[in-house]
Structures are given as C-alpha cells and as structure tokens.
C-alpha cells in the first residue's frame, strides 16, 4: 500500500488532502461541541438560578413570618442551613463543612444582621455592597478569599432588610470541566479516526492514479501497444484509465496509419524505380559504344539520388511525427567514428581538408546502428561539401551527464546567421549548396528519434559547430 518510491509520505497529495479535510472536519466538530457546551452550561446555570430564586423566596418568607425575637436568628439560620444541604450539582463526597452556600441578611442600613456560612461573612458583605444586586435576578459575585465566584440571589423584605443567598459555582464549574475533558477526548478520537479514513481512501485512490501515470509514462514511442491498468470499480479513476486507453488507441492507429502511408508510398515508388534501374542496367551491359552509355549512366545516378532523397524524406517525415522505428543495439561510437574517418579521410585530404578525432576511448550507446551510420555519414558529407579547401574538422567525443556528446568543429566560414535559425528544417540549404536540403533535417530527426538533441552554432573563433547529444541508454527501447 505504501509508496514504492522514495518520496516521503509528507509530500504526497494524499497527505495534503487528508490534512485539509481533517482540518475542516476538526473545525466543524469543534463548533458543534462548543455549542453543545454552551447549551449544557446555560442549562446548569438556569437550574441553579431557579433553585436560588426559589430558596431565597422561601427564606424571605420564613424571615418575615418568624417573630423578631431571640429565636429569630436560630430559626432562620436553621432553615438556611437546611437549604444549603439541597444544593444542586453537589458532589456526595464533598466534605461536611459547607462552604458552597452562604446566607446573609442585612438590615435596611446595609449592616450585617445574620450570617450562615463559612467564616464571618465580612468579605461577602463587602462584595455585595460593592455591586448592586437586583432582586429576583441571580448575579455572579466574586468574594475575596474564594477561588470561584458565587451566584447570588437576593430578596428585599418589607422591613427594608435584604436576604442574600449565595451558591458557589464550584460544583457547576467542575461538571463543566469534566464535560469539556470528555468532549476533548472524544473530539480527538473522532478527528484521528476521520484523518485515517480520509488518508487511507485518498491514498488508495491516488495510488491508482499513480499506477496509471507510471504505466502511461512507460508507454514509449516504440511500444504503443501497452495500456494503462484498469481498476475493477466503475469510478472516476477507471474513467481516467479508460480515457487514456482510448487516447492511446487513437494514437496507435494514427501511427499505424502513418507507417502504412509511408510504407506504401515507399513501396509504390520503389517498385517502379527498381524496374527502371534494372532495365537501364541491362541496356548498359548490352551497349558497345561508350558515348551512348553516358545518358544511361547519369540516369542511373539520378535514380540513386532520387532513392536516397525518398528514403530521407520519409525518415524525416516519420521522425517529425516521432514515429521513426528503431531497433537499438549496442554501438561503440568511438570505433564507428574511427571507421568513418578512415572512410572519409582520403576524400577530405583530396580537397585539402584535415580531419581529426579527440576521443576518451570506447563509448558504447544503445542506438539504431543503420540510422546512426547514416547520420554520421551525413555530418561528414556536409563538411566535405561545404568547407573551402585548407580547413580542418575536429571531432570531439565525450560523455556529458548521461549522454554521449559528439561535437564537430570546423574553421570554415560558418553558417549564414540567417540560415542558422532554420538549419534543421526541411528544404533549407545554403545558396551554393547542391544538396536537396535534407541533410541536417535528417540528422536532427535521427537524434530526436533516439531522445537526443542537435544544436548548430557559429564558433567565436570562426567556423561552425554542430553538437549532437545522444542518450547512452536508449529512452525509447521497449
């Protein structure tokens, strides 16, 4: 399942997609939990407020009905203490000393009259005096000495005194805290679970896509019969594979068509050429007089030139469509160049040209031998035809990265700057060239068919340079 490539998981699209999806999911669930929390907190608040309001009313009632005698403090205090035992949200394990509730009665002048609760009630009185507490409406109250605020409800008695009932929010907060903790753990679990599900599915999806990509890139120029793998399911991925395969079908069929056209063109032209050449040769052999032979001989030579032109045109046409057929073999360029130089040297020295090779020893590449032979012959023919006498040609053979580099330098007049731009196009030739303008186009075609390049330039020191780069391992072998 996990990548066969060395690429870390962090850089995969599946990782990015899952990260973003999880982020969105986490935000969504967090929002839901926040609302839920809000709702629960409000509900708890409302319930304790209801209790407070109810209790404070009862206490007010008791305080009013109880005669203001010596027993008043005890009766009201008793009732207040009883009320403190029925606090909502109270934990059972809580210690007996009840500091979560207080009862305070103040006189009309605001002085403390009765206090039930922890301590002497002085801080609570101060806090109550500091804020204005509206009757019937419980309010938060921060009392000095206590970490958590109290919820305080008050009621005004007819004699102008006030009764305050305070309930610590400690228990309420504890409930909410434990709720938050549970929410957080649940949220974490859901997010992790969601992430792994998203990651797993996108990863699986994208591994299909990757396999399709790998298969598609493996389908080379000489191997158009291969197809990308199809998945069992009927989804977008299988649609993609199907589309790619349809496209490959079309490419293969148009390649096939091109081959059929060029082959039948070659065949249709070659058969009559063969017959004509044969007849000319036969009439040449039966001729007695030399003068009569001349037109026949030149006709045969023209025919051979025509054949060569036909071959090169079709090769260039196929190469331009990336459809040149190759049968790669191991080929030592160093050895080949030495043989070629041996072949061309007499013609060159006859013309006053010098040719030399600088090579770092054997250099074997995977290439179509016949095409490379013809390509190098073309390069040499080119020099031979266009260089003025007393020039020299230097060939350098070396390795550059994973390509064999073949550099032809001469010290002739160089290329026309105008021609330089269109050098490798068909039918381009110098003003005084007698060729058919296919030479360089053919060289370019062969290099391209092998996944290599050709570049032509004028050297700063004068003369032309043609650089051919051919991959050492053929990229296009099937």
């Amino acid at each position, binding site marked *: 399942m996990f990548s066969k490539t060395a690429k870390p998981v962090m850089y995969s699209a599946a990782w990015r997609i899952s990260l973003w999806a999880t982020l969105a999911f986490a935000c969504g669930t967090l929002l839901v939990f926040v609302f839920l929390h809000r709702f629960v907190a409000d509900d708890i608040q409302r319930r304790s407020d209801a209790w407070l309001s109810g209790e404070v009313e009862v206490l007010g009632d008791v305080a009013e009905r109880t005669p203001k005698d010596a027993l008043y403090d005890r009766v009201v205090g008793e009732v207040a203490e009883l009320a403190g035992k029925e606090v909502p949200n109270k934990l059972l394990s809580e210690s007996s000393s009840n500091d979560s509730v207080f009862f305070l009665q103040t006189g009309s002048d605001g002085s403390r009259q009765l206090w039930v609760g922890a301590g002497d009630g002085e801080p609570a009185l101060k806090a109550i005096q500091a804020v204005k507490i509206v009757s019937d409406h419980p309010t938060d109250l921060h009392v000095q000495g206590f970490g958590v605020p109290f919820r305080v409800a008050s009621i005004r008695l007819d004699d102008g005194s006030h009764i305050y009932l305070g309930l610590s929010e400690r228990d309420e907060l504890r409930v909410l805290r434990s709720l938050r903790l549970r929410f957080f753990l649940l949220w974490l679990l859901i997010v992790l679970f969601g992430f792994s599900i998203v990651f797993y599915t996108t990863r699986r999806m994208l591994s299909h896509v990757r396999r399709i990509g790998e298969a598609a890139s493996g389908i080379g120029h000489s191997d158009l019969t291969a197809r990308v793998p199809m998945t069992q399911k009927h989804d977008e991925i299988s649609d993609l594979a199907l589309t790619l395969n349809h496209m490959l079908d079309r490419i293969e069929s148009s390649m096939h068509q091109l081959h059929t056209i060029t*082959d039948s063109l070659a065949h249709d032209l070659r058969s009559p050429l063969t017959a004509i050449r044969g007849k000319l*040769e036969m009439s040449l052999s039966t001729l007695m007089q030399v003068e009569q032979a001349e037109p026949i*001989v030149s006709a045969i030579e023209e025919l051979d030139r025509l054949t060569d032109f036909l071959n090169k045109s079709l090769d260039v046409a196929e190469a331009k469509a990336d459809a040149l057929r190759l049968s790669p073999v191991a080929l030592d360029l160093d050895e080949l160049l030495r*043989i070629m130089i041996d072949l061309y040297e007499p013609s060159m020295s006859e013309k006053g040209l010098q040719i030399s090779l600088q090579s770092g020893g054997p250099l074997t590449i995977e290439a179509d031998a016949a095409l490379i*032979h013809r390509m190098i012959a073309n390069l040499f023919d080119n020099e031979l035809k266009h260089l003025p006498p007393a020039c020299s040609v230097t060939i350098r053979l070396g390795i550059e990265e994973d390509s064999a580099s073949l550099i032809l330098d001469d010290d002739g007049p160089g290329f026309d700057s105008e021609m330089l731009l269109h050098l490798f196009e068909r039918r381009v030739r110098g003003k005084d060239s007698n060729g058919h303008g296919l030479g360089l186009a053919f060289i370019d075609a062969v290099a391209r068919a092998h996944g290599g390049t050709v570049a032509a330039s004028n050297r700063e020191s004068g003369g032309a340079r043609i650089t051919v780069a051919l991959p050492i391992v053929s990229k296009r072998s099937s």
Partner: protein
Amino acid sequence: MRLLLVEDELDIQRFLKTSLTEAGYQVETAPDGKTAERAAIDGQFDVLIVDLGLPDQDGISLILKLRQLGVRAPVLILSARRSVDDRVRGLEQGGDDYLTKPFALAELLARLRNLTKRNSSSGAEATRLRVLDLEMDLLRREATRSGQLLQLTPQEFVLLEYLCRNAGRVVTRSMILDQVWGMRIQPDTNVVDVHIYRLRGKVDGPGLQPMIRTLRGVGYVLKDR
C-alpha cells in the same frame, strides 16, 4: 544452378529473369505465395529470391513456412520497405540475406553468389589470392604486382582483397561500403571513388596494364583477363 524467383511485380520479374538467366541461373518464377509454395516443394532449388510484399501473404511467413516444409535453400529477401524488420534480421542471422529496392544488379548477383557459396562451404579458405600478375598474401598482409611490393595501408589491403575475391565481376559502391567498412549507407559524396582512385594509383603503376576499371553508374571491376 536452379533459382526460384518469387516476385509479383511483372516488370521486375521480367528483367530479373533475363539478367539471372544471363548470369547462368535456371530461373523459375512465381507471382504469389501459393504458387511459390508448390514450386519450392516440387522443384529442387539451390537458392530463392523472395519479395517481401506478396499479394497473398507476407514474404517472411512464406519463408518460415517453406523452412517448416523442409526447404533448405538459402533465401535472398527483396524488400521495398524502408526499415529492416527484426524478423528479416533474424533470417539474416540464420544464413539468409536481404536487399532493399531499388538495387544494382551487380549487387544482387554478388549476394546470390555469397549465399550459394556459403551453402556449399568450399573447404579451407585460401591464404593467397592471385589475379593475373597481382598477388596477395593474406597471412603476411602483403600484395605484389609483377613481383613489385605494393605499399598499401591496412584499409587499402582489405579493399584490394575484396576486389580480388570478386575479380572479373562488378562490385558496386554500396557493396564496397557494406563489405569493407561494414555499413549500409549511401553517401552524397564520392568517398568510395577516392579510395579506389588512390588504390588504383598504387596497383596500376606506370607501364602496367590497368586492372581496376570503373564502370560508371554501376561500380568497379578488377580485370582478370
């Protein structure tokens, strides 16, 4: 020597038959695969010429079928296709040969000779060649003309050896390129002519009878008479 020519183009068939008969072959022709199959099984042929583009079937399939039927004669394949098929390469390694159209008659004849010679395997190779007063010692890599040692480069020696082995017969430029330099190319320039010209300067010295003749438009002959 009996030869079966399998070729559907009548023009080519006609001139090939004439030239081959002139060259001393007993030629029988077949215009398609079916006829060729029957003819090849009935007649004892020494060599076959098969065109790849037959009307009823692929030339290669025909050759493979004939091989299965026990026809052992070597085959010269004629191809009008541009690229040489891998299957043709396979047959070439199996002892057959191929020629692309259009071809020079001289080359066709030379390849036919090679095929039949290969088949009859004429014992040990000679170490000395002799054509008129030209002698070549293949072991010592020396050549003499009228007893005079010729100063030849190794390449010129190989070229002269090839001419000697084909003395009296026409060799074309492409045959020389194929046999001496080992490549099937068609240079736009006269590279082979210059080699021959230099060789001639050494072999046909002043006062000697010229031996290397140029047949324009065709090739060269080393005279043996």
